[in-house]
């Protein structure tokens, strides 16, 4: 018997005909994932070595959220046991009861709402699991054949497919299939590229990513002149994502805003305070087909909707789970899946190729050390970025090591900040004026 069916039976019974009155539920919610995944890695030019062998993973687990008859709540992680006898689950139920706590705002299971359909499954990925997985081995072989001869390559390909089940006592019963494909590679652990969506990458995407990475790797072999005090700093798309993930996304989490732990107080959202330049908007969009951050319903059973966090530079809403939405007095919003599902838009974005031509004196930052140590609430950063790329007169001319100091909130409000579109990434290049020194 499947885990989701076992849990449904258990919780329905505990709600309507409990074995003990103190174990009576008034409401409940179940989330279960059934998944299979395969992966293959490259370490130091070796495919499938002892630390990165071809791997298969199977799992069936999830979580339950319970509201007891006295209004207390419990939440627990669950997995399919070695047996599915009722005694096991009754013991679990008793333990969950013991772990119950008072949280009136959380004790709320909404009624089902219409679900907007979005494609989150690529049947070609399902075929990998029913077939022999040759696609993974072929990709790795191609990488190793095409890589620069002197480069030490690291890389990985992972693909997953499975079911997501969400059930609630209020009548929501959603089951859908979803898939995932992620790959990344790097040369000399310095320059890399990656892809992550709910579909396989297309040949033109693979070629584009490979060509871009190769060009940057070649530029990295040349030592370039140092930066000056007026050098423009350009964050590569993956860096833009990292900076947003460190300084912006945590400050839009509803619970942090409500508890006064974010950069922006609730009043600033209610007054639509200007916090970015009016050209910038920020949104969570789980309705883009086959994107990694897309889903049909959240883990709490809330149907996917587009949620604007910042519109024309002004605060609109934090992202709100059910409990936070009750406290906020609004509907639950979309929820980002890590950084996936989050989109930063600029009204005057131009293609990166065009933007690059206009850079007289710049430095392209591909990665920094220690970003996760920076203070998210203040937005201030002090970072070293060895192995950045110098840009002079519209050309990437070689490698340089720099140190960055500034404040990311200030960067996003500055009129001098520009954005450039990348056709291989969901985040833009960010062109900022900030403190830059030779490392």
């Amino acid at each position: 018997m499947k885990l989701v069916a076992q849990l449904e039976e258990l919780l329905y019974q505990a709600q309507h005909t409990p074995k003990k009155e103190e174990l009576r539920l008034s409401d409940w919610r179940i989330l279960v994932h059934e998944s299979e995944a395969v992966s293959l890695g490259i370490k130091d030019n070796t495919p499938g070595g002892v630390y990165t062998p071809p791997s298969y993973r199977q799992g069936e687990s999830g979580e339950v959220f319970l509201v007891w008859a006295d209004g207390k709540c419990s939440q627990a992680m669950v997995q399919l046991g070695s047996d599915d006898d009722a005694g096991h689950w009754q013991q679990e139920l008793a333990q969950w009861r013991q772990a119950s706590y008072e949280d009136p705002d959380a004790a709320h299971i909404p009624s089902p709402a219409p679900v907007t359909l979005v494609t989150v499954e690529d049947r070609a990925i399902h075929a990998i699991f029913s077939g022999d997985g040759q696609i993974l081995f072929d990709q790795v072989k191609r990488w190793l054949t095409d890589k620069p001869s002197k480069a030490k390559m690291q890389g990985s390909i992972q693909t997953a497919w499975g079911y997501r089940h969400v059930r609630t006592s209020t009548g929501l019963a959603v089951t859908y299939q979803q898939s995932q494909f992620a790959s990344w590679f790097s040369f000399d652990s310095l320059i890399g590229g990656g892809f992550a969506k709910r579909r396989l990458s297309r040949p033109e995407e693979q070629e584009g990513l490979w060509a871009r990475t190769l060009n940057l790797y070649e530029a990295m072999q040349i030592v370039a002149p140092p930066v000056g005090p007026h050098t423009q700093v350009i964050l590569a798309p993956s860096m833009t994502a990292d900076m947003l993930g460190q300084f912006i996304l945590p400050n839009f989490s509803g619970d942090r805003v409500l508890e006064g732990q974010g950069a922006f107080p609730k009043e600033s959202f209610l007054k639509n305070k200007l916090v970015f330049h009016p050209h910038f908007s920020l949104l969570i969009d789980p309705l883009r087909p086959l994107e990694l951050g897309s889903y049909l319903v959240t883990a709490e059973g809330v149907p996917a909707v587009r949620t604007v966090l910042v519109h024309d530079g002004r605060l609109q809403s934090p992202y709100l789970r059910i409990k936070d939405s009750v406290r906020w007095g609004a509907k639950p919003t979309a929820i980002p899946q890590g950084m996936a599902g989050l989109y930063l838009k600029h009204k005057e974005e131009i293609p990166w190729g065009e933007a690059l031509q206009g850079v007289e004196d710049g430095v392209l930052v591909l990665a920094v050390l220690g970003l996760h140590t920076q203070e998210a609430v203040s937005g201030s950063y002090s970072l070293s970025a060895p192995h950045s790329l110098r840009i002079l007169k519209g050309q990437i001319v070689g490698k340089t090591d720099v140190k960055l100091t500034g404040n990311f909130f200030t960067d996003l409000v500055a009129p001098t900040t520009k954005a450039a579109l990348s056709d291989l990434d969901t985040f833009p290049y960010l062109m900022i004026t900030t403190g830059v020194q030779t490392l």
Partner: protein
Amino acid sequence: MEQKAIIALVQSVLAETRGFDGYVIVRAQSRREWGMRLSNGHFERVSTGADNGFGVQAFTKNGASGFATSDVLAEGACQKLIEKAIQLAQRNEAIGTKSNSRIWEAPQVVAEEANPAQKAFGEIPLAELEKMVMTLHSRLRDAFLEGVWQTSYRQVEEIWCIGRTDGTNVSFVIPRAVLMHQGTVRDKGKAQSTLSHRSGVDASVLFEELEDHALERKALDRAEFARAVCGAPQLPSGHYPLIIDYGLAKGLAHEAFGHAVESDHMKESVLGEAGKLRKGLRVARPGVNIIDGPLPGDWAYQPYSANGLLRQTVTIVRDGVLEAGLGDVFSAEEAGMPVTGAGRAESYGHIPLPRMSNIRLLVDRLLPLAPLDHLMDEVKAVRETLIQHGELIEGEKNLLLLGYRGGQVNPKTGDFVFQCDGIIDVADPTLPIYEPSIFSGKILSALEAIRGGLGEGCFDAIGTCGKGGQSVASSGGSHRYLLMDADQQVSLGGEHA
């Protein structure tokens, strides 16, 4: 699942591989976790969880490997998983992977270790734990009303069993518990957060805290310090004589040296040459030692590797000279170091990698420093001790870096970056405070700059190491403070544009 049941599971899986002409490692794990988080006086979450599962790593007779893992322990799942692992190993051999047959040389080990916890996992009922944590949280809030406080408590029990084709069967229990206070403080239009923790192996940490309130005092001191940092100026970037606390010293030892001597990194490590450990290389002044090994009762305690070998304590640097590395059975010989049982994995679903347990950076040249209850009293004592022993470098700032917020190192280039909570100039009798800024540079220069230590050894700086995308408990420390000379390759941050 209990320890006996896990041992039986491993034995039954191995029994099903008897017809296979290669080699198999089976790892099974049963994990239980209770956690709770309180925010501003109310429970945000109380959760319970369990995760049981096993992984099969199969090697063809030529040494190509495949791995399969499942959290489904139902009948039939074992056979399917074994078949998958063997099939993947055979596919891997067909693509010409580099073979590795080192596991055949590993010694057979049979051991069943008792649970080192003083209080068994469920001995203190969850409801009682909730009351204790609420009491501690409420006391803290009452003592510092201007702060926004979150308190969290987590206790974990991992039961492991590792079995191998050669008859090895090793089982052990890893208990862990941690209490954390996180505060957000605002002043002068700025906000700073602070995090303090107390760790151990079981719920004893709560009883101890209710008795002595040591963590509460630390959290309050850190909150006061964070408030001072809100209005503090930024330090001009430069190279300074430094005093770093043991949390930062643990970060330096872990990120900068521990990772650089792990046997799977030797081809890309600044401490490697042609893929071998640069044994005999002088990396620090005489009297500097770096040691890694499990400590009973510690947050990162693990007595055996995830490949079933005894975990050894290793002196990585002895008297300033690089002596040994952290060797995993699969890569130690190639890296030019002995096997030390360094393989650790996040769970049954991960491939073990060579990594640290508790890493300590110790020096022979030591100044005494009596521990004091309050942070700024201790900072004053540091200044007085330095003056008394003629160790304050005159005519320039002597900067004490407090609190470890994490860091990152590129082991290939030797570049490191660490972040602290704030900085105090102990050369100035008014002890001015500065905003935190990055402590960065080259790892070999940083180690070479260490000139002495202050105070007794403190090895409870805990963290989670994320190597290879796997989260594994780590810990370590040093003397209460380490003294470092100014070095042109080691700098503190920079000014804003």
